[in-house]
């Protein structure tokens, strides 16, 4: 039993990682209505920036703050320079631009920092809380706390601020949003900036665990995508719950479903997601689109 | 031809239709009026199986309409237009209309891919029908134009053509003269009358344009808050105090 609970704890830990990136995905979806394939790579790039700051001798927390700031500005710049020219083009065109961005950022990071892995300091202490045969690492706890805080902030942003209202308006109907006076361009840039910042948090959380290298976020992105889909692409709470469900399902499958084997375990969360989606096509926390002819 | 009994539809706390019942005889033209949000469009949506009824019954030519899957409605001879347009924006006007004849065609994936003579013949037939309707509704000029970007009034005609090309028996029109000026409304009434004769179609029309409704309908049903509050010949309904209070207001 303790073993089982321990697996769940571990699964939650992994899930929190996926959730951290899923939050960034959900954020940008809320702002712009597109899925950003480059989100993971931007997070990785932010982690490199943090690494570079630390390599230059800055202490971790200062490097963190600077990285978040740089990521925010960088995200806005990307929107202005890369996304703006295709604004108003068909949705898939924008999505493919983010695919191009993915390839570009990945290669650029390899070019600048090489593909060799780098270690990244863990902001959380190494130990673990032991209780009732369960062990809960401080690192896991720390990640969960950060993810929880980010989720809460995003929830407040979406639901309880004017900016949040404006950005949901932009995502749902850009031309009407303009008519009521929303600066759509700035709102989108802001969205990219914020998403890049949340992504940077994710990258900095992930890097100490998976080691920093240009392909670090590739696998995470897929699980984050799964998490966001499961939770519903329009809900930060959903992203987190989705991430945790995916993490736990994956871990339990790997641990207990022996006949499947570790090679096919990836199928288990996918099947679960498919099943849930068939019951709730808009995801667990998503709002069903109301369509009236 | 169409019998609606005790039809009820609820959305959460809102009762959009509340035990509505009425009948439509073959060949008739029935006007459906009522304040905004009375449930007129919802009724249409029920008839075309876009919404599920919570209670009640709908019989269409002795068939239980509520048991028919949505895509089979067209095959039964029921066609409709949409209140705020339901066109296929990227498709040309002609193709939009051809989709209206979808249920009369028989080409499947394989036969179409092989472009069999059968398919070719069918295609030619459909195109001829569509072209004659385009002509009738003065749409030939814009036949190859994508639907998106055309003026609202034109699009309303495209919708009408699309509904008619499948040679329906029952035509449901949701605010067809919306956005037309009075001359255009008059012209539209004339066209509709003629088409009705020619296609031998029964019509139920939702419209807030009283001049149009009173001028063209044989009978009028008035809904309010999902309930039927009046039914009868246009002139009678127009004088009905309930209808006046809920819908028409004082001076018209």
């Amino acid at each position: 039993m303790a073993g089982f609970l321990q697996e769940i704890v571990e699964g939650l830990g992994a899930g929190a990682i996926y959730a951290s990136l899923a939050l960034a995905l959900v954020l940008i979806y809320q702002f712009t209505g597109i899925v950003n394939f480059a989100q993971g790579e931007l997070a990785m790039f932010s982690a490199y920036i943090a690494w570079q700051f630390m390599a230059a001798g800055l202490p971790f927390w200062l490097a963190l703050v600077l990285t978040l700031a740089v990521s925010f500005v960088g995200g806005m710049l990307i929107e202005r320079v890369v996304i703006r020219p295709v604004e108003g083009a068909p949705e898939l065109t924008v999505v493919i631009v983010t695919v191009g961005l993915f390839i570009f950022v990945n290669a650029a990071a390899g070019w600048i920092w090489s593909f060799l892995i780098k270690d990244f300091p863990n902001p959380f202490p190494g130990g673990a809380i032991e209780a009732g045969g369960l062990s809960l690492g401080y690192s896991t706890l720390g990640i969960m706390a950060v993810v929880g805080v980010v989720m809460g902030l995003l929830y407040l942003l979406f639901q309880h601020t004017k900016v949040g209202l404006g950005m949901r308006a932009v995502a749902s109907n850009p031309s009407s949003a303009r008519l009521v006076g929303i600066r759509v361009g700035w709102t989108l840039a802001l969205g990219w900036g914020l998403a890049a910042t949340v992504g940077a948090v994710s990258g900095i959380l992930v890097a100490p665990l998976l080691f920093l290298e240009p392909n670090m976020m590739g696998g995470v992105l897929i699980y984050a995508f799964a998490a966001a889909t499961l939770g519903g692409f329009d809900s930060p709470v959903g992203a987190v719950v989705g991430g945790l469900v995916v993490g736990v399902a994956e871990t339990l499958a790997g641990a207990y479903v022996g006949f499947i084997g570790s090679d096919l375990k990836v199928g288990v969360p996918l099947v679960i997601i498919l099943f849930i989606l068939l019951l709730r096509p808009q995801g667990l926390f998503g709002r069903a689109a109301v369509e009236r002819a | 031809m169409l019998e609606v009994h005790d039809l009820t539809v609820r959305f959460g706390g809102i009762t959009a239709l509340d035990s509505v019942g009425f009948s439509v005889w073959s060949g008739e033209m029935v006007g459906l009026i009522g304040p905004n949000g009375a449930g007129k469009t919802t009724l249409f949506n029920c008839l075309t199986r876009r919404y599920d009824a919570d209670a009640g019954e709908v019989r269409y030519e002795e068939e239980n309409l509520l048991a028919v899957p949505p895509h089979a409605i067209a095959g039964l001879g029921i066609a409709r237009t949409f209140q705020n347009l339901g066109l296929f924006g990227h498709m040309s006007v002609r193709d939009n209309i051809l989709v209206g004849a979808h249920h009369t065609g028989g080409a499947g994936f394989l036969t179409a891919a092989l472009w069999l003579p059968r398919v070719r013949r069918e295609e030619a037939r459909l195109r001829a029908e569509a072209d004659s309707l385009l002509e009738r509704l003065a749409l030939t000029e814009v036949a190859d134009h994508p639907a998106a970007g055309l003026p609202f009034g034109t699009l309303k005609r495209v919708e009408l053509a699309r509904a008619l090309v499948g040679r329906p028996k029952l035509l449901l029109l949701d605010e067809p003269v919306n956005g037309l000026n009075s001359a255009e409304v008059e012209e539209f009434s004339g066209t509709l009358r003629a088409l009705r004769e020619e296609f031998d179609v029964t019509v139920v029309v939702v419209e807030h344009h009283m001049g149009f409704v009173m001028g063209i309908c044989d009978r009028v049903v008035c809904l309010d808050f999902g309930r039927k509050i009046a039914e009868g010949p246009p002139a009678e309904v127009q004088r009905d105090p309930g209808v006046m209070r809920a819908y028409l207001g004082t001076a018209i």
Partner: protein
Amino acid sequence: MSENAFLTVTDLRAGYGGARVLHGVSLAVGQGEICAILGPNGAGKTTLLRALSGMVRVRGDVRLDGADLSGRSPDTIARQGVAHVPEGRGTFMPLTVEENLRLGAFVRRDRRSLRGLRDLRGRRGGSAVDADLERVHTYFPVLKTRLKQVAGSLSGGEQQMLAIGRALMLRPRLLLLDEPSLGLAPMVTQELFRIVRAVNEEERTTVVVVEQNAHLALSIAQQAHVLESGRIVLSGSAEQIRADEQVAQSYLGYRV
């Protein structure tokens, strides 16, 4: 036409892509005036309003109270106090009715209008925006009962009311109405024009209204223009236009 017009449009040309729709439209509307635009289907009425609110690229000159609006983006123009009820309503489908209405006041300076801050502090009412929300509720009582409903599920007419309510939330200096009565029940249509009249009188809001119900439009307008194929073919005071033979035939035919 007033000498010191509030809104002046000179030789306005506009279109979509390569297709020109407006071929040099000029008009002037005085402050606090109501101006009706009539015209057949496809004449370019909608395009004219879109040009005024910056939704389509224009050539020519548009001035609002002296300020040049031509070539400005819609949000800049909205900030100048121009509210537009667009053709097709422009509802924010996934948002609630209340959110839709509050978005109308997005550019107003009452920072209290931040829906969130108010909710966070547990305060209700009090701000000017809240007062305006109340006002819209009295205009369109249906909306009040639907505040938390997703706007996309409203009936056609209800969405139309919502679009008008949203525009009023701005307390605009210039109100552009594109077929506001579209899909509204007769009673509401009459009420609507009473409201427009009232807003116009109380706040000296200038109004440009495109409307097929020419009777009603002309009954509240001071001046009117008839647009055909992208050109103004007839202008005058509301009475003059009403008296015109041609207009009577095309636009006033149905006297119900």
